[in-house]
């Protein structure tokens, strides 16, 4: 069975690719559950687009829209989509995914400044974000990999800065990680549904379900990731075309 970590692995590799392109290392893949396949992906494009809103999730939404054509069709598919994103969606993206009616979000690390799935606000559950139902957001999948990529980014930007900010950003810390307060994002019963009864000590102790870091995902350049994702996404388009013909 393909699990959360397999899908998130793709997102982490894509984030690494974004880092190598000079963008913030945040990336996502949209998985269409009935097919078990990636149908869209995105990385931050705030530099290229000259807007502060071209976040990975929006780039994936645009990507999917150009594949399926209409906004109405997007709404029809959304409930069956799980979004795997390396960093918790910001409030804007969390609200957008809600208004679109996305089925579920799985993320790596918390977005301490702007997180919209529990860190700052709960746009996935609160009433004000509209008509299209709520979604569950599961944190902590490949969290350490996501954090390491962000640390690489900050150390790099700090090296280029004329006035380096502080010590914690000058040195690359590869060993210590903040605790994860699961309760901000999931009820304990939801945690058990996602991870199993045997993992509940992590819920109580605020610790990671997986402590070992997959360094090859974080450290190896992944020039082939775009080709791989394109290949996967094209299967969905072919599948749809076949269905339309039948």
């Amino acid at each position, binding site marked *: 069975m393909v699990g959360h970590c397999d899908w998130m692995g793709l997102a982490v590799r894509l984030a690494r690719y974004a880092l190598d392109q000079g963008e913030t290392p945040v990336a996502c893949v949209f998985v269409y559950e009935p097919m078990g396949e990636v149908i869209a992906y995105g990385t931050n494009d705030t530099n290229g*687009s*000259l*807007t*502060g*809103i071209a976040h990975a999730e929006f780039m994936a*939404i645009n990507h999917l*829209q150009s594949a399926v*054509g*209409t*906004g*109405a069709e*997007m*709404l029809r598919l959304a409930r069956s989509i799980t979004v795997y994103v390396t960093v918790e969606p*910001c*409030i*804007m*993206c*969390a*609200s*957008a995914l809600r*208004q*679109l009616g996305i089925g579920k979000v799985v993320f790596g690390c918390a977005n301490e*400044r*702007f997180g*919209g799935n529990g860190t*700052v*606000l709960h*746009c996935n559950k*609160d*009433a*004000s*974000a*509209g*008509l*299209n139902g709520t979604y569950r957001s599961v944190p902590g999948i490949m969290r350490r990999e996501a954090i390491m990529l962000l640390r690489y980014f900050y150390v790099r930007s700090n090296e280029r800065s004329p006035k380096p900010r*502080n*010590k*914690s950003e000058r040195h690359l810390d590869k060993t210590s990680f903040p605790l994860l307060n699961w309760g901000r994002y999931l009820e304990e019963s939801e945690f058990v549904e996602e991870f199993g009864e045997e993992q509940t000590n992590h819920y109580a102790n605020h610790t990671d379900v997986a402590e070992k870091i997959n360094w090859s995902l974080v450290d190896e350049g992944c020039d082939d990731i775009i080709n791989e994702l394109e290949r996967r996404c094209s299967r969905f388009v072919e599948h749809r075309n076949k269905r339309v013909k039948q």
Partner: protein
Amino acid sequence: MVKKALNPLKIDFKKCIVEDCLLQIRNEKNLEEPELINVWTIQINAKDSKLLIDFIRSKILDEDGIFLNHIKRIRKVEGPKKMLEVVLCSTEFAQDEAACMSLLTNCGFNYQNLSCENLIPKQGAPTKELAIEWSELYWPLNWCGNPNDQILNEYTFDIDFIREKLAQITSISQEEAKKGNKVPVVTAFVNPCDAEHPIVSTDQRSEVNDLVLDHSIMIGIRKVAEDTKLKESQLTDSTIGTDSTYLCLNFDVYTTHEPCSMCSMALIHSRVKRCIFIRPMSKTGTLRADSGDGYCMHCNNSLNSKFEVFQWIGNDFAPIEIESNLCA
């Protein structure tokens, strides 16, 4: 800075209303509770207080991004020795003990008990009574009037220009409704460097091919970026960099309906200075304290990113009402 009495604008400081038509939107719920921040404190001998004041003036006041003018820097320490406890700087300015110690190298006086345990209100209290209460609870405060009075007094408004923009978006909203747009929300983005040429956007979600997320604010932000790209491509080498636009930095945004969480956050990401809206959205709005889930996105303490928000409360403009469950 104009004195309150000399401000040519009519401002009701109590109700926070400018010229009887612009209501300042704030989070009324958290006004009576201070937002607390940790600060670095040290204890020194009372005789060293002059050295200390010189040190703070020369090394800290201009550098520390967190303004602490509303607190008394120094308080007495109970005890037989004449000791003073002093607020050195914010924990944002000196992030750890080592940073503090290096700041204090060669300060010329002895100190002890360096600590970041003390909590102080980040801003002054809104009333004298609260200032006294907070002084006892946290740290001695100066009372220099309600800080919001000063904030309101320093804002600038060109009321005629504001009226003109609101009239423009209202009339476009009415035209859109006539054309069959079921969500006739309209927004104008005004660049402070080019106020004569606002970028106007309309909600596109009722178009069959368009997305439920194509709200007027999102479309407007993208139009501003396209406009910036176009202008940059037309610039000759000699003019590059003279007047370039960064995101929507310092823009004023005029919109017919109170924005949803997606759009309010997009305004924060775009670094706008001010948003003026006309119709509140009681279920989906995210600026008024009594709208939706009471997010007050523009002054939410945990977001640490702020922009000014006003609601036009004059009767002169009536953009088309939209269904209350919709996100504007």
